[in-house]
């Protein structure tokens, strides 16, 4: 029976219902909680920033009439074939294995429809993903599942994955019920095992090695492909500088709100730093090296709206990446599936058991009956619609700030609503010129 508040009953702030339920679950099951999605706790985020629209000292651009460009070129530092995107939003790496084959195809279709890139994941490149992705980034992960030079050459860019925002310092995880015959074959693993991916690369261990590794990847691909380095946000300033010095064309910084298909809840909620300070630290690192904009910065972790995109760009990112939001756009957590979510002990809007392989939306599953429900054409089109909205919203905000390209947004266009956000993003608290930790008179 559901507990109910009545007058006189006082809930502990410390031992709230979630804390009590987790203690009871741990005592019952004797194993940590593994789930999908990203951090669910309240964190300083882009909601804590506001944009300053144009006024007397700055004039805006006419909505729908005056141009506000959104194109992005990634990888021009060393690659002979940089990639060109029409919008500053890309699809983050998500594996075939974590996601169904139709879901991966839908991601490619949606991204291609609006002229942006999608990314493989821990498990290799599927033919349908390559076929339906106009621009595809191929991840080189510690596990090297499915890694092969033929796919490396087919890719449009290569992303060396050092870490992921949901679990910096942790490896991948794919539980046995999602290791289907096809997934097992692609990963050279026995069917049905609980697969733990390595957290360290097998053939390099530090920044000096990384530079040599990137050199090898460039040699294998004849210096054509842009090379990204992706880090989970932790010691972001140093990680970005080391990755740039190692020769990266593009840096991807994934804040702790970034999603995951399967990770321990304690890891998701307690390791890493939020996306907001991570952007600032990454831009600081690039500016100190004199390479801001020459080395592009992609930021991910909790991007939901054009407002999030515009604020990330204003802080200095060249593009953002989405994962969780893309899955929601394709049908995850849809109210139409409420009855089935309830049967799984969850509810639409709360469902995060992406590790379990029973996803009624057919996205985070390898069950044929379930994944057959997902029409990759329809799901891809829904994703494309959502990406268009993100882009239109970003343009709307950029025009209001008088910018003819979304990259012209700048920190000067931002203020913060909270002291924490002001300190982390290093923009003034609204109504003051005070940036905590930097100085100011008020």
């Amino acid at each position: 029976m559901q507990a109910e508040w009545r007058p006189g009953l006082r809930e502990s702030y410390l031992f709230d219902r979630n804390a009590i339920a987790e203690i009871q679950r741990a005592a019952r099951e004797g194993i940590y909680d593994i789930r999908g999605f990203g951090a669910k706790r309240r964190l300083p985020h882009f909601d804590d920033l506001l944009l300053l629209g144009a006024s007397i000292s700055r004039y805006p651009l006419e909505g729908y009439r005056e141009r506000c460009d959104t194109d992005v070129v990634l990888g021009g530092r060393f690659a002979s074939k940089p990639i060109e995107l029409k919008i500053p939003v890309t699809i983050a790496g998500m594996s075939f294995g974590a996601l169904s084959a139709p879901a991966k195809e839908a991601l490619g279709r949606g991204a291609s429809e609006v002229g942006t890139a999608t990314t493989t994941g821990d498990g290799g490149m599927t033919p349908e993903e390559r076929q339906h992705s106009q621009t595809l980034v191929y991840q080189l992960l510690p596990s090297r599942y499915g890694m092969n030079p033929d796919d490396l050459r087919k890719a449009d860019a290569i992303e060396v994955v050092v870490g992921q925002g949901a679990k910096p310092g942790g490896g991948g995880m794919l539980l046995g019920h999602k290791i289907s015959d096809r997934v097992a074959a692609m990963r050279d693993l026995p069917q049905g095992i609980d697969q733990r991916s390595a957290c360290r690369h097998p053939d390099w261990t530090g920044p000096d090695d990384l530079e040599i590794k990137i050199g090898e990847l460039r040699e294998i691909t004849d210096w054509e492909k842009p090379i990204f380095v992706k880090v989970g946000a932790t010691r972001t300033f140093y990680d970005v500088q080391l990755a740039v010095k190692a020769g990266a064309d593009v840096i991807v910084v994934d804040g702790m709100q970034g999603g995951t298909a399967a990770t321990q809840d304690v890891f998701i909620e307690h390791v890493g730093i939020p996306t907001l300070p991570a952007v600032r630290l990454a831009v600081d690192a690039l500016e100190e090296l004199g390479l801001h904009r020459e080395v592009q910065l992609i930021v991910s972790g909790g991007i939901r709206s054009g407002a999030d995109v515009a604020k990330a760009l204003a802080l200095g990112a060249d593009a953002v990446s989405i994962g969780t939001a893309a899955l929601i756009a394709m049908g995850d957590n849809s109210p139409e599936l409420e009855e089935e979510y309830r049967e799984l002990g969850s509810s639409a809007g709360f469902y995060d058991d992406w590790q379990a392989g029973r996803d009624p939306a057919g996205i985070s599953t390898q069950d044929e009956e379930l994944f057959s429900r997902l029409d990759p054409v329809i799901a891809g089109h829904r994703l494309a619609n959502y990406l268009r909205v993100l882009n239109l919203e970003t343009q709307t905000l950029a025009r209001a700030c008088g910018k003819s390209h979304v990259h012209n947004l700048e920190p000067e266009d931002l203020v913060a609503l909270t002291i924490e956000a002001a300190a982390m993003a290093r923009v003034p608290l609204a109504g003051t010129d005070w940036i905590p930790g930097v100085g100011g008179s008020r």
Partner: protein
Amino acid sequence: MGARAVSETAVEVVDLATTPLREVNQRLHDLAGGAGGPARWRVLNPRGAHAVACGLDAEIEVEIEGHVGYYCAGMNQLASVHVHGSASTGLAENMMSGTVVVEGSVSQSAGASAHGGLLVVHGDAAARCGISMKGVEIVVRGSVGHLSGFMAQSGCLVVCGDAGEALGDSLYEARMYVRGDVAGLGADCVEKELRAEHLAQVSDLLERAGFDDVDPASFRRYGSARSLYNFHVDNAGAY
């Protein structure tokens, strides 16, 4: 240079003392897909250069006259690469097919995540030999360092000498054969019976490696106990 028929006899000699590595690798890559060109190559003066002869994808023979740095023959397909010297980290990493032979010793992570092909080391291999291997066959005449075969998924590692600590830690279906002492086994790695099929496998690999003075029956076999394949809290102490 236009496409021309593969030459079976002529040896193309390239000198890394005077030719940039990029140019050498590009010429070797241009042979992919049956494009034609010299089938036999000699690379002089590698002097520890990294990424020598990586990304090859043609049935050619490449003789490297000296020591090489990291990632020599990385991601090799089809080619036979012979290093007349020693090799640094990540030799033949992620190799798919072909053969890589090193006359000297190799540094750590030799054959890392390699999916196929044959890797032969005449000297010793340092730590993490065969880490994350996915089908490659590796034969080491000397000894291997700690954590060799770490998370090895499939394929075969034959060690004629000794193995360091934590051999085969967290391995899956790869087979490990060691003739000498094993300093210690890693999590879920156990000694297993050497049956006729395994003896045949070791014999075959020793023969292909050219080590015909080593008795296949003198090896011991190690593999996965498969007790950690599915997470169970009773095994928490092993994780």
